[in-house]
């Protein structure tokens, strides 16, 4: 069986852990418990008749004082960049992390999750943010860990990209 490592990157409290919990355990917690250190979850998926064990690395979110430890990215076959458009500055963090990841592990498959889509009436993405998102030329999904919207697709699309890479 193939094993693939993927990492979730993003600012703090954008919903990285929640997306994983929704995908792996089908649950959602309203209460915010920040992730300390690294938590690895596993999920077996079948893509184009191939069984793939996804090793999903949930990494502590970034803030100005707490930065991503880039060595954790080693060996990753893909990564998910998570932003929370109800807090538009998390997009700036997303762009930085994308650059950091590219610099450290090169061009591997990536996918962008604009999370908390259930709150899309509170999203406030500037024109500049939308343009910058487009310039990344990566697939973008509007996800909600709360409702489960697009969460399956997020992981499956990334895995599919990884297998065809």
């Amino acid at each position, binding site marked *: 069986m193939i*094993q693939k*490592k993927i990492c979730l990157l993003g600012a*703090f*409290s954008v919903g990285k852990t929640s997306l994983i919990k929704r995908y792996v355990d089908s649950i959602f917690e309203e209460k*915010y*418990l*920040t992730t*300390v*250190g*690294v*938590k*690895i979850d596993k999920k077996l998926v079948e893509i184009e008749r191939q069984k793939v064990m996804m*090793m999903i690395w949930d990494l*502590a979110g970034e*803030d100005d*004082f*707490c930065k991503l*430890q880039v*060595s*954790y990215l*080693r*060996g990753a076959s893909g990564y998910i960049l998570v932003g929370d458009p109800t*807090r538009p*500055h998390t997009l700036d963090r997303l762009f930085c992390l994308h650059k950091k990841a590219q610099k450290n592990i090169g061009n591997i498959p990536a996918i962008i999750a604009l999370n908390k889509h259930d709150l899309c009436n509170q999203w406030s993405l500037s024109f500049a943010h939308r343009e910058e998102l487009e310039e990344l030329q990566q697939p973008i999904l509007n996800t909600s860990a709360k409702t489960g919207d697009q969460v399956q697709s997020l992981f499956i699309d990334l895995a599919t990209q990884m297998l065809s890479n």
Partner: protein
Amino acid sequence: MTLLARTFQGFNQWVLREVSEQCFEPITPRPQALSPLFKLDDEFLHIGEQWPFLLHFLYDAKAHWIEQHAQPLISGIWLEDCQGKEIALEASALYVDGESLLIVHEIERKYGETAYRLQSSRDHLLVEEELEREVARRTRQIIAREEQISLCLLAAAGCRDEETGAHIRRIGLYSAVMAEALGWGIDQVDHIRMAAPMHDIGKIGIPDYILQKPGALENDERSLMETHAAIGASMLSDTGIEMMDMARDIAQCHHERWDGSGYPKGLRGEEIPIAARITAIVDIYDALVHKRVYKPAYSEEKTYDIMSSMSGSHLDPRLFELFQQNLAQIQAIRQQVQD
């Protein structure tokens, strides 16, 4: 059990030595806190795929051992799921007395303290962010309210001639499109959207018989009419408000021409404030495409031809080019904002 071993166990640390690739032999007894992670009869620690984090750490640890560093290399915190509970762990690698040592620590207390600190600081940051968003929301509300009041007053002031509420509003919106296209900051865009509609406020001081005269104005009537620029500017002066300073410049200079043939001062080129040059373009456009007492509404084509012939003489040619590039947005506003 040696004293040393007991000490390690007391700190919930398990010390192991590397015996072969990915296989480690305990030097100290396994602390109780780690037991749930192992089967009872596990003697050695085999770091295989069931330990993905440790496996990842081994890569760095190996390099550390090869270089025979005695000071520990620390893995950072990770969590292992165990019977519905999470166990917080940390590993260190060090090289002592010719042996490659691996220490696995159960760090419940350290984890608890770190988590508590991080959680409080992040909860705090989230509250701050929320407050900032609330302030921004209220500020936008206040700006919108100011704008509404200002537009109502302007419509009232303009009701003696054909300056309808919609015309006034359109001038602001067109100007904002131009300002955005020029890459102005959001504050400046807000300013011109509110300031441009005030360009003709000085007409409040012009008598009806001139303002509403259908035919051409006599010379003395024209001179009087032209005073609306100065009247407007003096009405808008000395407020100490940045947006109003822009409004003053626009009122003062929106009849100046690029080639210096305009009034009141005959300024030329970039001597004319850019906000006034923008307003001049969009004001002429709106007047041409709508009906006035002295003319019918012209088509977009005819308007475009007339304005093209004014570019470089009456109008700033570079701004006129920008205006053309953004004509689709301007036309959309024209369609949307009607009386």
